[in-house]
């Protein structure tokens, strides 16, 4: 049977609409479920109080601190390394065996499940380097985990800058480093920020690798060598060990709000940057 061109159009349109709306639908369903259960429990005392009775009551302040500090450590370590690697691949080497090996390596790492990074972090940072369950071990582990994403997005951002801009910069007497600093990096900034944000998202949401390397203590950390519990881990433990479904939902709702806040801040930063001058 031959289907008319008009009919094909209609079918294609239907499929695309269904795809788009089921994606949106699933997203809203998840948000609705978590926020409906969690939002009513969110009040100031919950955000600012310490967890009590294993988290059955009390607040989540130390886990918020844990999440932010751990993510910050991961991003602060991974961003310069990742951007540096991307610059190396794009500006300092041509397509060569070395660059192909690095790219193949990062592509493979990007597909490795987080628990493997957790295991590596546990064996290497926690045991071998004797850092123990700590913010530092966890942050380093998360850094290795988000590194491939940052390299890949930064490289794409650098690649998309036109050759003529570089040529102009060299033509005006710039050295390679001056060209990178004044032309390449400023123009790649929005793309690099996107990669960092993806990294932030993965760090904030990670559980398995964090439990293995940063522990799950909900005491307030006092140095980079203290163990911590992140919000995601807190949520996991509350739900998994049946401590309190209510508090789990509340933590989940707070986590969603945190991610929303981070993304809003990043968008604002990007907007300010693009519309400067």
């Amino acid at each position: 049977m031959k289907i008319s061109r008009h009919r094909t159009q209609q079918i294609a349109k239907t499929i695309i609409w269904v795809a788009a709306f089921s994606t949106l639908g699933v997203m809203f369903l998840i948000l609705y479920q978590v926020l409906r259960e969690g939002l009513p429990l969110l009040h100031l005392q919950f955000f600012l109080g310490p967890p009590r009775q294993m988290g059955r009551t009390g607040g989540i302040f130390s886990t918020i601190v844990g999440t932010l500090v751990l993510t910050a450590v991961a991003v602060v370590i991974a961003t310069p390394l990742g951007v540096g690697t991307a610059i190396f691949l794009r500006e300092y080497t041509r397509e060569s065996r070395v660059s192909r090996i690095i790219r193949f390596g990062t592509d493979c790492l990007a597909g490795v499940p987080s628990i493997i990074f957790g295991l590596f972090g546990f064996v290497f940072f926690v045991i071998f380097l004797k850092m123990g369950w700590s913010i530092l071990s966890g942050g380093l582990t998360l850094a290795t985990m988000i590194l491939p994403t940052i390299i890949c997005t930064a490289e794409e951002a650098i690649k998309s800058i036109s050759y003529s801009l570089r040529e102009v910069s060299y033509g005006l007497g710039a050295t390679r480093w001056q060209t990178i600093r004044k032309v390449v990096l400023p123009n790649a900034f929005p793309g690099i920020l996107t990669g960092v944000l993806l990294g932030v998202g993965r760090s904030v949401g990670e559980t398995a690798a964090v439990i293995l390397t940063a522990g799950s203590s909900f005491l307030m950390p006092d140095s980079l060598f203290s163990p911590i519990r992140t919000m995601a881990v807190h949520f996991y433990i509350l739900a998994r060990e049946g401590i309190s479904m209510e508090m789990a939902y509340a933590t989940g709702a707070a986590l969603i709000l945190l991610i929303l806040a981070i993304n809003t801040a990043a968008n604002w930063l990007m907007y300010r940057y693009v519309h400067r001058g």
Partner: protein
Amino acid sequence: MENRFKVVIQNFEFHYGPVLALKDLNLSIRPNQIFAILGPARSGKTTLLKSLNRLNDLIFGTRHRGQVYIDGQEIFSEQMSLPELRRRVGMVFDLPTPLPMSIFDNVAYGPRLKGIGERSRLGEIVETSLTAAVLWDEVKDRLYSSALRLSGGQQQRLCIARMLALEPEIIMLDEPCSGLDPISTASIEKSLMSLKEKYTILLVPHNIQQASRVADRVGFFLGGELIEEGPSEEIFTRPKVKKTEDYISGRFG
């Protein structure tokens, strides 16, 4: 090396990988003149310009043979500093290429790389350069707005100003008027005529009429070879080589 020449090119050849772009070139260029490089597409014009400031070095797999001297100094020698060479030999490309920053920052880009940081000194350079490129009056009230918001003709004059801010000795323009309207073209030509008193100018004109309007001497290139070179009025009225005559009278190209 005779002093009356600013640029002396001897037995120069240039390859992109296996492709020979310039063949056995011998050419000397005098200071304070406009030298027009004429020829159809792929005749080696841009290659010649980008060899003189060694921008071709950025491309992988290029090779050269022969010598190029600027003021008697071999530019391919070990001692030659590339940033220094590129400041002495300024270049404007065929398409306007403002950097995505303000007008002021575009013009101050080169001087800042040289280490000039004082606001007042930079301001002076920016004003002088923009004035020389006949752009100052149009942009003096919006120096800090983005250069990308200028029109095509203004952007190209900005590129000229940016190059002049380097205080070069030689300026090279690669079809600076392609894609510009006749009025912008006229104002660029006007600024060229006044610039030649201070500089040595190499121009790839975007058509034969432009060459005949502004050039003192003309070199005609074809397939990477210099076919004929001489004073402008000679080349345009009684060329010695048949190919030159054919090109100038519009029989090909």
